[in-house]
């Protein structure tokens, strides 16, 4: 396999998020924290969310992991900030579909950088890396909306 194929996985934008993560850090008051790990590889991610008036006011992440899991967390926090809970959940659904290799309809929501992770679908062993942060977000939004 040539590096061209690897390039579909490791897009420049992914590497940029890996090297310069956005929203890395923690939140203090009124936020909810979700720990999620990938037991098969040892990656750990912590997502901090602050939801108020049904809107994701703030989203941050911490943790250790591979380029795919950390860049995905970075992109996820960037994407959901300022969105309604419903929109965030919808994006998560779109992301899941994208990982299953489905063509995603971008009409409703602009995926932005997240689109770069589309190539992960071709690397089955890495899909869990990419979905880790999104699963944590879903769990956190559920907790805080209750």
């Amino acid at each position, binding site marked *: *396999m040539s590096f061209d194929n*690897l390039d579909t996985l490791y897009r420049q934008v992914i590497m940029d998020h890996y090297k310069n993560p956005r929203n890395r850090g923690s939140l203090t008051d009124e936020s909810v924290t979700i720990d999620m790990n990938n037991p098969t590889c040892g990656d750990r991610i912590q997502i901090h969310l602050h939801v108020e008036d049904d809107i994701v006011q703030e989203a941050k992440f911490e943790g*250790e992991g591979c380029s795919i899991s950390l860049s995905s967390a970075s992109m996820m926090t960037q994407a959901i900030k300022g969105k309604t809970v419903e929109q965030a959940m919808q994006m998560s659904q779109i992301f899941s579909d994208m990982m299953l290799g489905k063509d995603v309809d971008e009409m409703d929501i602009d995926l932005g950088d997240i689109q770069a992770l589309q190539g992960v679908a071709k690397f089955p062993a890495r899909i869990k890396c990419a979905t880790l942060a999104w699963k944590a977000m879903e769990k956190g939004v559920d907790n805080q909306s209750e």
Partner: protein
Amino acid sequence: MDAVKIRQLFPILDQEVNGEPLVYLDSAATSQKPLQVIEAMEHYYKWNNSNVHRGVHTLGNRATDLYEGARDKVKSFIGAESAKEIIFTRGTTTAINTVAYGYARQRLKPGDEIVITPMEHHSNIIPWQQAAKATGATLKYIPLQPDGTISIEDVRATVTNQTKIVAMMHVSNVLGTVNPIKEVTQIAHENGAIILVDGAQGVPHMKVDVRDLDCDFYAFSGHKMCGPTGIGVLYGKKEILEQTEPVEFGGEMIDFVDLYDSTWKELPWKFEGGTPIIAGAIGLGAAIDFLTEIGLDAITEHENKLVAYAQEQLSTIDGVTIYGPTKRAGLVTFNLNDVHPHDTATVLDAEGIAVRAGHHCAQPLMKWLDVTATARASFYLYNTEEDVDRLVGGLKKAKEYFGDVF
């Protein structure tokens, strides 16, 4: 030993992965199977398939002979005194759990100690954590030396006359450390404790003689020694197995069954409830024949050469960290700079090279190494120096690929 010739006996190795000839460096996870093992199982299913120990018809007799014949092969292979000491299990995990439930939990009391090491595979940690919780016994760890070995002084300091069970891996699946089982066994016995050896990475790669080691239990898996998945072995000294309770109850393992009470068959069958893993045992028997023909000493020597070559070659790459002692069994665990081992493994996979990346079912050891994960290349009798060269080439490419990121 001619690894290039041996390699041809493994059909799976003759293929391309991602457009490159496959280099399989993940035998510590599971080994590949030679054609004769695959054929032995196929032959059984085609001609002899039947349930065992129910003897009236011919196929039943054949199946029983093959199944018990495999037990005899295991007995000779590891130097047990009697085939009664060979229990077929699903694998190493089931074998260790059989001892934890059937032996340890029956006799441990508060104040008793179980002694293990931080390098153990999860399968030799969690059964003891659970047994300690259930009985009030204390779980103790023999500390590791900076190079990932254990010292006999530390073993002496940790094992006391309160210690009832010592459980230790023969060979580390991460560090490649070969533990001094014979000495540890002696110390355990001096203190009145028994010892269980997790031999999952031992038996496939070196001549093991359980009577020479004098260990009380020795557990291993078929699939890491050219055999099929789903079959493993618990060896136990006869008198200790007799003191061990069965942990699975049902058909096949009983003598008499009454409405409110039952009695068990004699060894080894009292531990083999339900229809046993017949084809698996036959496959394991064929794997033992295969390994015996090549010779375990020749295999060990081959792996020693390969791992020395691999260490030498890997250390020529800037930014590679190798974990574990220099003198090691046939595997190398490493990391490449700040590249996450998952990313390293993905790049290698693109080159047709299969390595393991992750925590290797040894999270406490990862913590001790202060890493979240590592990459591991593990060798077996079918690997060659060319495989090591391909690995080195792949790692150089991974470095180049991620080079501009860091």
